[in-house]
């Protein structure tokens, strides 16, 4: 049904997420499991993916990037929110209803070792999505498609009959990408696809992804914590902190004019590969640690570590609102006129050398 629908006008986003919340209950007790709290892994995330773009999702470990990805794939129970994919609201789809949708969105995993079944030949790893969706493993169609995919990701044809342990990390990641592409999905969710690889191999895999995107018109949700890779590959970027999106903007806007104090600090933490510039530039240090997601601070989640926080930040969570340049920022100071100046003013500079 989803396949036969007429193509929706191209301006409509491929995927829209509104107010997505994923809370994990924390229970206590053996027989009568009482809920004593919840972990708000994702707490009201909204963004949209336009067709053919790469959306980078960044943030430090534990901020809910991967949980967001799993929620989009409907691999987790949603607490609240709405997911609209290719024009249909899949939020409450049953597993049977999801099956055709799963052909359209696929995932590339972080760990190239654990994500391939060690007891399956590469041919059948790559062909598994086909087999799952009813293509006979002995049919010509299956063999042809697998050969095609092996070629597409730059592996050699005679590798098809080997086992994953015979491959290097980069090759395994290619196998994982080939598997994700088997059903010709429109959305590819890459959850830190290169963080387990060494740098030269990272470049190969990233280039493969961009080539494939150009060739197949893929939309990619790219999750990473490596900002330089996100800058290289993304069209737009979203920054997450403690289960919420603090800023989304086009790549250049975000990297050149970060608005949110957290984004600024995050970008500032990236070392510059030039010792002279590095020694002269202002250093922004975020004080303290990430608060626990079990008990996040009231108001703006970032306020205990924010050097420019005002009393309002403690009381009221800022909404994600658009700014002049098409970016979306969730910060009280950015939206009240004087605040922007304050964020960009001396406040960050004062923290220099305080460590």
């Amino acid at each position, binding site marked *: 049904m989803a396949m036969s629908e007429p193509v929706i006008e191209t301006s409509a986003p491929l995927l829209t997420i509104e107010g997505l919340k994923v809370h994990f209950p924390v229970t206590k007790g053996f027989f009568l499991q009482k809920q004593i709290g919840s972990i708000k892994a994702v707490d009201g995330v909204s963004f949209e993916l336009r067709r053919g773009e790469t959306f980078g999702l960044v943030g430090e470990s534990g901020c809910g990037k991967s949980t967001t990805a799993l929620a989009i794939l409907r691999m987790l129970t949603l607490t609240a929110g709405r997911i609209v994919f290719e024009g249909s609201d899949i939020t409450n789809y049953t597993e049977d209803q*999801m099956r055709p949708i*799963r052909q359209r969105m696929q*995932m590339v995993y972080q760990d190239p070792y654990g994500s391939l079944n060690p007891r399956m030949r590469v041919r059948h790893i790559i062909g598994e999505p086909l087999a799952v969706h009813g293509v006979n493993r002995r049919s010509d169609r299956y063999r042809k498609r697998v050969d095609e995919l092996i070629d597409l990701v730059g592996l050699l044809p005679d590798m098809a009959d080997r086992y994953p342990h015979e491959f290097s990390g980069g090759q395994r990641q290619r196998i994982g990408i080939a598997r994700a592409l088997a059903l010709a999905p429109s959305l590819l969710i890459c959850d830190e696809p290169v963080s387990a690889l060494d740098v030269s191999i990272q470049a190969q895999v990233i280039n493969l992804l961009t080539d494939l995107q150009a060739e197949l018109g893929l939309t990619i949700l790219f999750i990473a914590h490596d900002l330089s890779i996100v800058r290289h590959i993304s069209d737009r970027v979203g920054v997450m902190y403690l289960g919420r999106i603090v800023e989304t903007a086009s790549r250049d806007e975000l990297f050149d004019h970060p608005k949110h104090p957290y984004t600024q600090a995050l970008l500032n933490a990236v070392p510059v590969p030039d010792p002279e510039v590095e020694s002269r530039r202002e250093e922004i240090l975020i004080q303290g640690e990430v608060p626990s997601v079990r008990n996040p601070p009231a108001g703006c989640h970032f306020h205990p570590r924010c050097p420019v926080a005002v009393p309002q930040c403690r009381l009221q969570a800022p909404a994600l609102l658009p700014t002049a340049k098409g970016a979306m920022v969730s910060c009280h100071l950015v939206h009240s006129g004087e605040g922007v100046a304050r964020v960009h003013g001396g406040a960050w500079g004062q923290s220099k050398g305080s460590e």
Partner: protein
Amino acid sequence: MSEVTLPLVEVSVRERPAFIAFTLRLIREKPLGAFGGAIFVLFLFFGLFADFLIPYGVNETNLRVRLEGPSADHLFGTDHLGRDVLSRVLIGAQLSMTIGFIAAGLATIISIVLGVLSGYFGGKVDMLIQRFVDAWMCFPDLLFLMVVISIIGAGVPQIVMALSLIYGIAGSRIVRGSVISVRENMHTHAARCMGAKTMHILVRHILPNIMPVVIVLFTTRVGAAILTEAGLSFLGLGVPPPTPTWGGMLSGTGRTYMYMGPWLALAPGLCLTIVVYAINVYGDALRDLLDPRMRGSR
């Protein structure tokens, strides 16, 4: 060498068929285990072809050669009725191996079914099954066997059934553990993510990856079942006479004539010891070789 090309792909040598490669590794890395495996196979052979190997009839008596020691005619001597001990030990091997294999096989199947149900589906199912297993494991094995046999009578099918229940239910815990660890692997997640049905995941992802554990479980259970069956026969609760069993031979003629004819106890006793020892070292070797964490260490 003027051009230096960075190889994008490594070419690896094609491996020998898995079974032969594994056997060679077993011999090289675990000689004792390989030896145990060889003895195991030898006894299996004796058991399978016992009917053709026995020099005399099992219950064929010859009162002229009562309680004679080992000789060229009777390699393991004769018992108080002049029956050939070698023939009886061979037929006993047949029975022991049959019971050991079938009971261990059934036990493994029970373990897999319970372990997969419990480990893969988790939650309430897991809770129920595991509390049942807890309760089950509180009963001493032999006591359960004696109760079952006194109710439904002694005989090979009953013993096999009871043994497979005992070992199957206890072994489900081991299977459950490895199912849980495989279930959490990302390739299982990937399969669910592409819309695979539960059956597909179980057959293609879970079962192949718990096979090392299952193989080891099976081999150790063969030894345990043989030993327990011998124990039952020793107590007179096993397969009824005159069918020769190792345990029965030990307790009957073996004990009564221990001083006049020590070979009567030694023949079945040594066979039992050797077989169970062989199976155990073989199982240990398999466990070590099949566990990737043990690779490289001896």
